[in-house]
């Protein structure tokens, strides 16, 4: 099926692109949304990604599944975008990455046996420092291995592992804090919720 879509796309059939978009657009948009934290940026990125797909379709040899190839393209495009955006902001937001001292988890119990609220987790992820967030998303959400993350981000495998460790510890603190003290950092959480509100969950 994917092979057929690729073949038709190569012939320039817009209908085939629409099929590809319907099949993979949400996946790629979600990757972009979570990596950038912005629905508007994700919308621009998903367009850019599909244009890249069109331009690079001749390089798709079918060795990997189409979805895997698209996902890789999307992750790289998102990382390029995030890096350039960070560069423009002179890494202001990344300053928190250097803080190894993490908040101690609040004393109140977090009920791991209860279903973890999706929106709470999304909001907490949005509050992570960028480098933590990227590593966590790629590992725990997108399912990449540490060596793949290392290659993708240009960091050592051990650094990826350390970033995921720190991200999880920070997330745990945020989630426990939210449960005991209400929404942690309400302004940022509200901003994240507002952004998420622009997109409809599938």
């Amino acid at each position, binding site marked *: 099926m994917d092979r057929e879509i690729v073949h038709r796309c190569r012939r320039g059939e817009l209908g085939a692109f629409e099929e590809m978009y319907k099949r993979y657009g949400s996946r790629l948009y979600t990757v972009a*949304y979570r990596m950038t934290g912005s629905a508007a940026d994700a*919308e621009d990125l998903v*367009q850019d990604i599909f244009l890249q797909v069109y*331009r690079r379709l001749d390089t798709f040899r079918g060795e990997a599944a189409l979805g895997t190839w698209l996902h890789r393209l999307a992750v790289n495009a998102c990382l390029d975008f995030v890096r350039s955006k960070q560069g423009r902001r002179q890494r202001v937001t990344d300053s928190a990455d250097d803080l190894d001292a993490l908040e101690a988890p609040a004393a109140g119990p977090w009920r791991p*046996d209860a279903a973890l609220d999706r929106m709470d987790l999304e909001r907490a992820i949005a509050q992570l420092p960028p480098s933590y967030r990227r590593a966590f998303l790629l590992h*725990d959400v997108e399912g990449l291995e540490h060596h793949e993350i290392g290659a993708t981000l240009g960091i050592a495998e051990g650094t990826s592992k350390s970033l995921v460790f720190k991200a999880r510890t920070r997330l745990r603190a945020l989630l426990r804090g939210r449960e005991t003290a209400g929404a942690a950092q309400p302004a940022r959480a509200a901003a994240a919720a507002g952004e998420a509100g622009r997109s*409809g969950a*599938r």
Partner: protein
Amino acid sequence: MERQTTADADCGRFAALVHDRVDGTLDPDLQEELDAHLRQCPSCRALEADLAAMKGAAAALPDYTPRAEVWAALSQRLAGEVAVRPRQVWTGTRVALAMAATLVLAVSASVWLLRGPAPAQAPQASAAQAGGPAAGVIQSKEDLVQDVDEHLRIAEEHYLKAIAGLEQVVKGGESALDPALAATLQRNLGVIDQAATESREAIKAQPNNQLAQASLFEALRQKVALLEDTVALINVMRKGDQAGAARILGGVSKS
């Protein structure tokens, strides 16, 4: 107090092992030691439970659906790309380039047939395909050659029109480029211009020189491609997209 400090230090060490276990990468030799610690440490047991829940929830996060407007905008951009495949061209030059490419393709067969050892019947058919005089009207070979020349001239005009449009855009945005890079691009454009000039001179001396004609159109095509890349570069530089710029420059150096 001392026992508490030791326990904290142990928990720090075992926390890493808990992460490994949640990821399914725990060294089997450490399994027993970790289990023994967890049995006596509620804090680390809570950590394991929390991480397992978090990892499960993260892996199960649902996808979001982009707004319908995203496909609408994307399909327009894709349609533009498809129209001028394989190169990225923007609206102002798209039509001119498509026409030029069509003309060159259509006419090239006629040129070969007319100027090469063509069979007697071929020129008429080729001229008709090239959009020349109405099919069925018999023309002399000289008339047909003139007609093909006219089409090539029109094709060249389309390329030149596209180039002029691109040059205007580049001129307006050149300040976004690094001066050294801008100078390199100008030098490369100069080399292409020189090739085009030499091809024109060869055609002037030998109007039937097919190699020179092919060379001229190749030079024009290369100039369009380089100008397109330059415009794309200007766009990404304006956005501060260094990685995008590196990608384009990589493509330029390969082409």
